[in-house]
């Protein structure tokens, strides 16, 4: 294993994965020049609260800073509000929007993801996506003014925004194309529990509907559905998923295919690693299938792993975790671990769906492939461990039976 002696590392993307990468580089003794480049004007902050506490109006910016310790300790050359626009892997340079060219001998790509947009959406005031602090504050100002909200897409973010609106007593309509919220991820049984939960809390949830047009005179006034129904509203949030931020890498010789494609050690090219929402890599724990994960824990862990990979030159250790994600809605902790589809066999092993306190496990090819729970964090971690150990589904069921 060659140990490259790196002197000059650049990290592009100043959010969770990028910050964990620079912290790891310094912790592991990298003493050379370290540059962190970010498109946003802000120091790294935490995104999950943007659809939860911040939008609900109970937290402020200073409560979501990702690093509490002073930045001086990291000795960074920091470029904020200055996105990278081009990468030259051969010359080993990154070019920023202002024209500055940064040379590197090690590169971490951590540019995350950005909201998928509705095709043909009109340019109307009041039409939003939610990814950044600036998005969040802009939406929050409208909520403060009592906006009637229409959310397009009942995925994690759409569902959380709906919950935040209800906590503020605002009218909110959620439009979902599929038959249940989050049905692809959680399956129809738990999807219907979520649907009921939102409806009980006063959300006007409409599933199996398609948006025909967003209309208004200069500003959002209504959403028209296929079939003619109309939702009157002042604010539309489009929450239909995210796409990896790879536009700046087009033409760079890296393999781009729904993310920056890496090997099992997160290497994208010699001396180039990727981490976080932008990274697509084969997870050996799940048969080496290429995965791209858009969740917090993955970005934190990959930031650490990728930095270590770059410094150590260790090509043999694979990044092979059990994916984990949480969502908070109406005070319920929803947590999932593993990799499963809504169509996998599911067994309810603890609790009852109607109590909003339960654990369900999923099966794929005889092994436990996933766990999903409401308000049962302890159990999630226990089953997460079984998934990591590739325990058989029958062993997981026996464990559950013995631990009622």
């Amino acid at each position, binding site marked *: 294993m060659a140990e490259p002696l790196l002197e000059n590392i650049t990290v592009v993307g100043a959010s969770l994965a990028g910050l*964990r990468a620079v*912290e790891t580089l310094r912790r592991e003794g990298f003493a050379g020049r370290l540059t962190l480049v970010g498109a946003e004007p802000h120091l790294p902050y*935490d995104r*999950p609260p943007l659809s939860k506490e911040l939008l609900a109006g109970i937290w402020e910016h200073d409560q979501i800073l*990702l690093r*509490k310790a002073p930045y001086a300790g990291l000795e960074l050359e920091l470029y904020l509000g200055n996105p990278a626009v081009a990468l030259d892997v051969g010359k080993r340079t990154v070019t920023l929007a202002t024209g500055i060219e940064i040379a590197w001998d090690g590169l971490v790509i951590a540019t995350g993801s950005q909201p998928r947009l509705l095709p043909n959406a009109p340019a109307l005031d009041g039409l939003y996506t939610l990814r950044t602090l600036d998005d969040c504050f802009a939406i929050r100002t409208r909520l403060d003014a009592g906006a009637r909200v229409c959310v397009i897409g009942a995925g994690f973010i759409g569902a959380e925004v709906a919950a935040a609106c209800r906590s503020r007593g605002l009218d909110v309509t959620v439009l979902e194309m599929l038959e249940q919220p989050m049905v692809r991820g959680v399956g129809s049984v738990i999807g219907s529990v979520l649907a009921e939960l939102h409806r009980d809390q006063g959300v006007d949830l409409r599933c199996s509907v398609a948006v025909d047009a967003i209309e208004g005179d200069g500003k959002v006034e209504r959403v028209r559905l296929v079939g003619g129904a109309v939702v009157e509203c002042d604010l539309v949030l489009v929450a239909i998923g995210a796409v990896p931020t790879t536009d700046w890498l087009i033409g760079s010789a890296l393999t781009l295919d729904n993310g920056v494609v890496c090997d099992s050690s997160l290497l994208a090219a010699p001396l180039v690693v990727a981490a976080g929402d932008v990274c697509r890599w084969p997870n050996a724990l799940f048969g080496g299938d290429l995965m791209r994960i858009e969740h*917090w*824990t993955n970005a*934190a*862990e990959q930031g*650490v792993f990728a930095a270590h990979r770059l410094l150590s030159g260790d090509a043999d250790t694979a990044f092979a975790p059990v994916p*984990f994600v*949480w969502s*908070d809605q109406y005070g319920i*902790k929803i*947590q999932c671990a593993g990799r499963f589809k809504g169509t996998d066999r599911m067994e309810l092993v603890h609790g009852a769906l109607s109590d909003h306190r339960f654990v369900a496990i999923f099966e794929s090819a005889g092994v436990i492939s996933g766990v999903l729970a409401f*308000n049962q*964090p*302890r159990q*999630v*971690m226990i089953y*997460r*461990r079984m998934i990591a150990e590739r325990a058989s589904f029958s062993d997981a069921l026996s464990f559950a039976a013995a631990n009622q």
Partner: protein
Amino acid sequence: MKIVVDFDKCKSNAVCMGVAPEVFEVRDDNFLYILQEEPAEELRPKMEEAVRTCPAGAIELVG
């Protein structure tokens, strides 16, 4: 080395328990319990990992 958890921030999601069950335990009441407030020095790497991966930024290592 001492483990300090800010319980106002802790969201009881048990990520720390996934990292180091010998130190962190979330029980069925959904509260986090610290099993060893001053874990042995050889647990430091795991404790640092718990600090880094706590989604609430609630864990601090002192000393």
